[in-house]
């Protein structure tokens, strides 16, 4: 087992605390079968460092893990990591998590670009992402009221502390996924074909049972010829309703 990056500096009152879903992503990315797939996809006589983008980094635990273990996972000692989150507190927390994880691995030469505050991957240059990761807000629950976002996305004017309402709002952003828990994910799926590198890009997204994963995968396969979607990791099989899975999305040469 590869070590989990430290997130002890993160305040979990307003940033999503690593949970079963986060750990399923770590386990999946470092599983023998995914490592084999990624090595074969990225090691092929290519020296340019892969760009790994995670949307919704939260504490940064997943992206930090990918960067710190780049050699094992991607066959590259150096990857570039880029993150986004809608929650500015998460952006700052994650940047630190990633920096720490990279510097703790001595031979590791990955470069942490930045964690930007934004909506999904809307500010990412098309056709540039090699590995995409998203653990979305996936719980079927009403979306929070975004009208307050501007006020709640930073410290209140002149204050050093957030309010309770603000923290609740920021945490809601991390789990509430609207109808079927799919509203945010559906918007993300629309962006995936555009941001992924047309040749070697691959995406990992997390779904729960209520997201109707079989239907989601079928829809992806119908994007256009060549698109593939397969479950490559799962957890909580007996736990009842919150069964989680990681779906790999990629395109094979037609």
């Amino acid at each position, binding site marked *: 087992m590869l070590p989990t990056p430290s997130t002890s500096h993160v305040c979990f009152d307003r940033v999503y605390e690593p949970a079963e879903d986060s750990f399923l992503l770590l386990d999946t990315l470092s599983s023998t079968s995914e490592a084999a797939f990624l090595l074969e996809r990225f090691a092929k006589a290519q020296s340019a460092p892969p760009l790994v983008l995670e949307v919704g980094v939260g504490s940064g635990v997943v992206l930090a893990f990918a960067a710190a273990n780049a050699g094992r996972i991607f066959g590259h000692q*150096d990857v570039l990591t880029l993150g986004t989150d809608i929650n500015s507190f998460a952006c700052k927390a994650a940047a630190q998590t990633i920096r720490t994880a990279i510097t703790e691995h001595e031979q590791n030469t990955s470069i942490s670009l930045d*964690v930007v505050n934004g909506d999904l991957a809307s500010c990412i240059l098309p056709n540039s992402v090699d590995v995409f990761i998203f653990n979305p807000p996936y719980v079927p629950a009403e979306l929070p009221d975004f009208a307050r976002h501007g006020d709640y996305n930073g410290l209140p004017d002149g204050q050093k502390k957030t309010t309770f309402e603000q923290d609740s709002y920021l945490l809601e952003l991390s789990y509430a996924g609207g109808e079927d828990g799919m509203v945010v994910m559906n918007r993300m799926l629309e962006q995936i074909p555009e941001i992924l590198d047309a040749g070697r890009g691959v995406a990992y997204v997390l779904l729960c049972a209520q997201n109707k994963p079989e239907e989601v995968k079928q829809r992806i396969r119908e994007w256009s010829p060549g698109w593939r979607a397969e479950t490559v990791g799962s957890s909580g099989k007996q736990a009842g309703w919150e069964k989680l899975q990681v779906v790999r999305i990629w395109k094979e040469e037609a």
Partner: protein
Amino acid sequence: MKLLTLNFLTCAIKACKSSPASFPLHPRDVELEIVESDINLPFLKNILPRLMWAELRTIAAELGLPELPETAPTRDHLVEGKEEAKEGEEVDEVPSQTARDLHRVLLETTVKEGKLVCGNCAHEYKVMEGVPNFLLPGHLV
């Protein structure tokens, strides 16, 4: 925010993506901060094919940084020569001035405060405490 990050960012407005003017974003009214780090020669060599050289040159010029060479350096341009190796020791490659400049511009020069401006729609994205904010009112409906 590192300048290398600008190599991968564009305007968040959908209609701008098809316009070449939306890349790169232009730093405006910025406060730069130099955050020193160890130079990583293998990384610099490997990143070369991913750099949008003309665009990076534009950004460096706009920021008043030392001019980058007109054409992108090759891997060899980044190496000074071999350090005299002692018996049985590994030979270390020495970064050239070009490599050191590149390291300085791409990785050590950061935007702390200021704006990033789209060349197509003129939208200004704020950078605060080193974090750029790409949220648009329309995103959050």
